[in-house]
């Protein structure tokens, strides 16, 4: 968490009013919330009235996907088709699966290329098949695992042409690449505070004013009647501070961290010539590097690198904690065997050249050892 956001959060913990109340403490709290709303909107090219505060990225994704589905289907019962990319975060992916299993949704999974990118032509083709039965489309702005950036403005233009609401999960993109709600033009956009240096448990859904998703949470009618619940005033204030800083520092951060990341990719390739870079080599998140190491089990590499002081991630884990082949890597058409040996290296504000050097020194021996241990 950014020190400025920590200061804002702890400073505002003393503001005890309920932002929905009419008394003076409530008015004070509401002022904090509304100023934060304006600042957050400004940072991401939205109007203040388009900001719906939520309990985090997962809630925003669920609200957009389920809420828009329900609203569109209720207005027109034919609209039960959900068009989604297969490389979405589980917060979207599992919500879509849930709609298919419980709410009669039919899902069209969009084709992606070897970099995991959805092409506008393929998107248009999917909608054009029968524009009248589409409830919504959802395509993430940038992929959290392999770093590929989607052509979001082009996709949003296609969606607008067919009057299909497009939701985009921009949790990974925010603070790393330019995210402008109005300029890109999706109907709904998910943000998470903790991914940009803000507190845990706070997020937002940027939501066009003509959109009224059916709420997940019913209650006091806060947040445009779309998301009820007493607002987390200090969290919201800290979120806004973090958002402004992340956007203000974005270009410099991307330049600096991108340089480190390029060095990291070169170093890994030099040490392990057959390592396969995941995602688009150029048009990718600046802080992301993703590799598949043939013949290695991802969790073996994780263990060996962690012991060498390097923290990285495999794709994802099941509820028991077993590393699973990533659905993202599989969706790009990678060999399932190869998908078992993937690692993601994420860089941040505190990453240094020394970190990259340490990885460069450790990765070769670790891969050699993991290969000896084999695929169990």
């Amino acid at each position, binding site marked *: 968490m950014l020190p400025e956001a920590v200061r804002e959060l702890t400073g505002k913990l003393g503001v005890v009013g309920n932002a929905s109340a009419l008394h003076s403490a409530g008015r004070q709290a509401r002022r904090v919330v509304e100023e934060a709303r304006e600042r957050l909107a400004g940072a991401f090219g939205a109007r203040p009235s388009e900001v719906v505060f939520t309990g985090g990225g997962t809630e925003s994704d669920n609200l957009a996907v389920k809420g828009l589905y329900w609203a569109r289907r209720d207005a027109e019962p034919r609209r039960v088709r959900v068009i989604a990319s297969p490389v979405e975060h589980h917060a979207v992916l599992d919500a879509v699966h849930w709609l298919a299993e419980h709410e009669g949704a039919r899902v069209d999974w969009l084709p992606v290329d070897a970099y995991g990118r959805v092409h506008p032509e393929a998107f248009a083709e999917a909608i054009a098949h029968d524009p009248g039965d589409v409830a919504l489309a959802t395509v993430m702005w940038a992929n959290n695992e392999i770093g590929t950036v989607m052509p979001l403005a082009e996709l949003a233009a296609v969606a607008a042409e067919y009057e299909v609401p497009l939701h985009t999960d921009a949790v990974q993109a925010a603070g790393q690449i330019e995210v402008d709600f109005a300029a890109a033009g999706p109907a709904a956009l998910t943000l998470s505070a903790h991914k940009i240096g803000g507190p845990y448990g706070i997020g937002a859904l940027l939501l066009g004013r003509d959109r009224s998703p059916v709420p997940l949470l019913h209650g006091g009618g806060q947040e445009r009647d779309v998301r009820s619940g007493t607002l987390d005033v200090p969290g919201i204030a800290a979120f806004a501070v973090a958002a402004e800083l992340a956007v203000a520092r974005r270009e410099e951060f991307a330049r600096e961290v991108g340089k480190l990341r390029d060095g990291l990719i070169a170093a890994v390739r030099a040490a392990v010539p057959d390592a396969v870079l995941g995602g688009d080599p150029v048009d990718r998140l600046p802080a992301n590097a993703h590799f598949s190491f043939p013949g290695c089990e991802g*969790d*073996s590499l*994780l*263990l*060996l690198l*962690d*012991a060498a002081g390097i923290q990285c991630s495999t794709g994802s*884990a099941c*509820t*028991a*904690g*077993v*590393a699973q082949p990533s659905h993202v890597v599989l969706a790009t058409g990678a060999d399932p065997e190869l998908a078992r040996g993937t690692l993601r290296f994420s860089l941040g504000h505190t990453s240094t050249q020394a970190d990259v050097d340490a990885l460069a020194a450790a990765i070769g021996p670790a891969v050699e*050892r*993991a290969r*000896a*241990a*084999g695929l*169990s």
Partner: protein
Amino acid sequence: MTDASSTTTRPRLKVLAAMSGGVDSAVAAARAAEAGHDVTGVHLALSKNPKSFRTGARGCCTIEDSHDARRAADVIGIPFYVWDLAERFREDVVEDFFAEYAAGRTPNPCLRCNEKIKFAALLDKALALGFDAVCTGHYAQVIVRADGGRELHRAADMAKDQSYVLGVLDDRQLAHAMFPLGDTATTKEQIREEAAERGLFVAKKPDSHDICFIADGDTQGFLAQRLGTAEGDIVDESGDKVGTHSGAYGFTIGQRKGLKIGTPAPDGKPRYVLDISPVDNTVTVGPAESLDVTALTAVTPRWCGTAPQGPGTYTAQLRAHGSETPVAAEVVDGELRVEFAEPVRGVAPGQAIVLYDGTRVVGSATIAATTRRGVLDQGMSAPTAS
């Protein structure tokens, strides 16, 4: 390779601690870390579709157990991973369990798991990844002789001793085994107290008793689901039919309960399972005296060290929580021939016999055939080599 025998007097080792989510393995990992070793915790996922919560007295294999193990590792302050060994476990332990019962034998899956999973699949991967030893919460001791050889001994606390299920380990496996709970005379209550003092919330977790992969503890139901039901005869020693059963695999030699024989024996004494013949799906019952085993032959012996030469006298243990009994034993043509000083009962083919010299484990073998009252049993198919 570095010495892995002790947690206290040896140099710092890279240790992989197998953590089931129970109290024993958590305290074992904590002791290894406290002794200065570089410990990493690993929980073995042994089921492809684990249940969410523990039910009954099982020791692992649920998501809750995996979380308990992770939580303990966090408190100890060691890295923690979950490794998926479900496929190996299914092949080497669960399938073996079915095959043994189908052949009329009585397997010990815990022993098989130690032999094939913890000290084979897991140990091999650990060694390949640069670890020196695998640490578990078993109650047993590894003692290093002056010549550097290793011996497996009973735990200092005989009541908790688990050397029987480790009797299958060979020299190489022992060289990389660490049992931090075995060398102190600690009762389970003391282990629980120690866990509580260390802040390990698994301190009060119930002990596990049943077979971990049988969720509801119903072994017969588990076997029936896979092996199906096949009605057959229950006969007495003279071959007269006294009842029917729904699958010969459902019985264990020495079993008395659950026979459901309508008519009592002529002498009114209880009857026990004497023989199981999967070939003709027949179960033979008879009086307790007929269970008296005077000798046995056991196959695929594994030795903790060098194989004994010539005949010798030992004590033998025939069940996980059984008592010791004096025997004379000799290896003949690769098979272990054992004669009991006093007849013993309830000896089932498929079970392991572990030989001891004092507290030292000499080796183990799988019982193939028994001799009762001087007659070698007929109809026993040889166990599959494992």
